[in-house]
């Protein structure tokens, strides 16, 4: 069963981190990615540029309307994701808790639809 692990963190807080702090988090992500790859759970995983680089697209009455930035102002923003193949929700929760972002932000675990 595939689960998307959507990592939400506070971007503003991230920009005020020291280089060492940032480095420690990167090491954490590297370790996590290595672990889930070795256990053959890893399907995909990407980090996203900050929401300041985002463009929101809507099509209304056949016209494409673009907006600068994300569609909603929230305290935490989607900063990256993993797609992991887990046995069940318990295993998914176990790995979600190991994602470094879970320690300061939050990780939303969403099962992926099988068509």
């Amino acid at each position, binding site marked *: *069963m595939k689960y998307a692990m959507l990592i939400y963190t506070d971007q503003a807080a991230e920009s005020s981190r020291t280089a060492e702090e940032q480095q420690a988090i990167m090491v954490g992500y590297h370790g996590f990615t290595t672990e889930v790859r070795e256990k053959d759970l890893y399907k995909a995983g990407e980090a996203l540029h900050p929401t300041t680089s985002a463009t929101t697209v809507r099509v209304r009455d056949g016209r494409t309307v673009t907006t600068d930035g994300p569609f909603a102002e929230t305290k935490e923003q989607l900063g990256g994701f993993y797609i992991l193949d887990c*046995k*069940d*929700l*318990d295993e*998914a*929760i176990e790995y979600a808790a190991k994602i470094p972002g879970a320690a300061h932000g939050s990780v939303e*675990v969403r*099962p992926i639809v*099988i068509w």
Partner: protein
Amino acid sequence: MPPAIDEVFHNESGRILASLIRLSGSFDLAEEALQDAFTQACQTWPEQGTPLNPAAWLLTTARRRLIDAVRRQRTRTDNAAALTHDILLRQESESPDMPTVLQDDRLRLIFTCCHPALNRDAQVALTLRTLGGLTTSEIARSFLVPEPTLAQRIVRAKNKIRDARIPYEVPTRDRLPERLASVQTVIYLIFNEGYASTSASSLVRGDLCGEALRLGRVLCELLPEDTENRGLLALMLLQDSRRNSRTGPNGELVTLEDQDRTLWNQTAIREALVLLPLSGGPYSLQALIAATHARAASPAQTDWRRIAALYQELLQQIPTAVVALNHAVAIAMAEGYEQGLELIDRIPELESYHLYHAARADLLRRLERPADAAAAYRRALTLVTNPIEREYLSRRLRQLAP
């Protein structure tokens, strides 16, 4: 449903459903199959007589229905992947030792229904529906919520179990304590919902206490080594033993001190005392406190020192203001009203809690400071919401005035 079948349904449906869910991997298919089996029982039992082992008959019948349903679904969708649970294979590998198999399944079911990924309301509704065999409308009435709301809650929970694949199994040892705590919370919540109610619908809600006791017994039976399971059951039994003495002939509140102790249910008390662990977590400690009251033949014979010591221990485990208040009251009874009052005054965070002022008022009354006691009762009356408690506090206030 004829009464005999109704009784079987109430006692056995949880067990049977638990097995059917394991066999089919689907709450919905299992419920449908069970419903079909009961419908068939209603038709055949009155004529042919109740089978020797009604539960086994129902399980066999429901299982047959389940196989039919799975076959139908297979030909309709042609998507074998969607049917990961091959019921036919499972049936063959099934242990012939039925009772053990059924018990294991009920434990799985409890843990799945109380999975922390479901919200508390959903856990409660699903537990009562599947393990308790209560209908949606019974649960809705018990919790005073509209039936469609409750039905929606159950549907959403079942969908999440299926879509997010919440496992149908007993948690591993490392996850067990946290998961067991969730199960215990749900059971105690069901009990309190029934116990706290004294409204017009008290008859229905009283059933919730019975249901919680039944679930508590199941939990003890399945995981007897956990002392908190026994503590929880003992606590519920002891509280329930006072059910008939808690209110007077006109529905008025009767406090522990004024209760007619001959009305206490001694059978329940004996069962609780046997279960009682000597120490343990919060449920065990609260049960030990309740047991100390249960053992006292009269209020004057209450071992308040022991109760104060137990509250002290509880306070270390759950350092909340409400536990501190109970501890202060026990100290007042054990060592002196002044000492108790002093402790109570050190819990300012309960300023907006009516029982805080009620406890102060009670001690001030005992200290023969009627003006201060009256002020505290009045403060409590501005905060109380339950009409029966309000009536009690008003009565106390009236008694102070000469």
